[in-house]
């Protein structure tokens, strides 16, 4: 059982949402890069 079990569920939920927002940011940068390379 880790320390994270003790933090409030709302904060844990925000952690996960924020993490996915950042993953989406990285994916968008990669997609933009691929798009730019295909259309130059």
């Amino acid at each position, binding site marked *: 059982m880790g320390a994270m079990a003790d933090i409030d569920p709302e*904060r844990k939920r925000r952690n996960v949402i924020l993490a996915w927002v950042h993953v989406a940011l990285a*994916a968008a940068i990669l997609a933009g890069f691929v798009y730019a390379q295909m259309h130059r």
Partner: protein
Amino acid sequence: MAHHDMAKDITADDHEHGHDHHDHGPPSGIMRWIKTTNHKDLGTLYLFFAFTMFFIGGLMSLVIRAELFHPGLQFVQPEFFNQMTTLHALVMIFGGVMPAFVGLANWMVPMMIGCSDLALPRVNNWGFWILPFAFTLLLCTLFMPGGGPAGGWTMYPPLVLQTGNALPLLIFAVHLMGISSITGSINVAVTILNMRAPGMTLLKLPLFVWTWLITAYLLIATMPVLAGAVTMLLTDKYFGTSFFSAAGGGDPVMFQHIFWFFGHPEVYILILPAFGIVSTIIPTFARKALFGYDSMVYAVASIAFLSFIVWAHHMFTVGMPLAGELFFMFSTMLIAVPTGVKVFNWVTTMWKGSMTFETPMLFAIAFVFLFTLGGFSGLMLAITPADFQYQDSYFVVAHFHYVLVPGAVFAIIGAVYYWIPKWTGRMYNETLGKVHFWASAIFINLTFFPQHFLGLAGMQRRVPDYNVMFTDFNVWSSIGAFGFFAFQFVFIYNMLACCYGWGGRKRDLPARVWEGAHGLEWTVASPPPYHTFEDPPVIGEGELTSVHDDEDALDHHKLA
């Protein structure tokens, strides 16, 4: 020593400190380290991994310096020499400096902002355990027919496409390093944004946390670009595309633009956390608040922004329109402004401080002086017409080693000296620390200062042989490199002695190991319990004064 002994030694169990109501103590054995999601464990793993990589990359640099001790070919063939220069860079950058900073962030960010762990502990475990596989892939290319990659860490086509079977392994290793960096940086960013203790507003964050937050965004923004670029190399080599092949309608220079769009922010990924470390150490040993906290934050943000619009200063000689050359020259020179703000603030923090010179402070002061020296040669390189002379010479090698070794590496060493009493509860040997510092400072200058003259005189980088007129400076440089490497064993002994309690070192340190230190990390025991701040801490009056007491600083001046 077996892993479970280290487990017991490095982090005290909960019962000793009574901070925890649950049975959260670390399990024993090797599985603790494989399965751990604890930020302190993973910080330790990152740091051990980084120092292993520093050792391997250091051995490669010794091969390079042994070969360059005299003109002519002595020890290795040119092909192997090129593999050494390529892998030395990749190992030091992606295996040494970056994991070391992630390790320091793992250990310190949760303790500095008052939370129990990073926001995504399992992702943290995954991010670390990717790295040994990535570097096994990369280093095992040395044992393949044709050897490892030898086209330089910048992987420019068409040269890199001549790499044999090592190329896909190199590219997959870079992908893995990228995944590890992105997961690590997302974790740090989410932790800082969402896990701060009540009252820890953004402009009260310790500078190390601020610099890491900005570094995390640099990583998230640039690592996908590197991944895309190396994937295009892969398809050019094996799937018949012509992204970078002029014969097929592609453009090899485009790779350089893409690579350096990643590569220049990467330079700041390697140095911004070092700025944070120095901004933490100097106020402690000057016993004054950091001068100009807000301006430090804005300077770091400005440097991060500028890092995205300077990339083509790495390619002045490749053939760009004049307007492009001028833009990249002036934008590069602009970086001197926020960097100058930072250097001014560090010096002003020390001004009229009650300074003492413990080992972390010595490394921090050396950082300020020698990093600035590397910055000055950077300004010289930024001048486009002058760069036509300096391009691909040893002057460039001297420049980036000054900012990376007495810059980033000295900051990492200073950080380990500064925080290892907190991590282990045992004080390092100060005499050995000072011996290590002075030997490192002398030998590192002996290694890299002569390389300025070699470059100005026309010695090319990435060559195993050279004209006899360059011999003397190369001899000095090689002696310096071997001396620097040898004295790092003093450091390793000193640190391991703290971890394992060698020489009868007792765990007798108070929570606030350094009397001038401020911040939440100094309010928990030394060593800290396995889980800290499971209940959000109350930030004591004055605990964060290291970041915000300009009034106190002014009073100090009046008293002085």
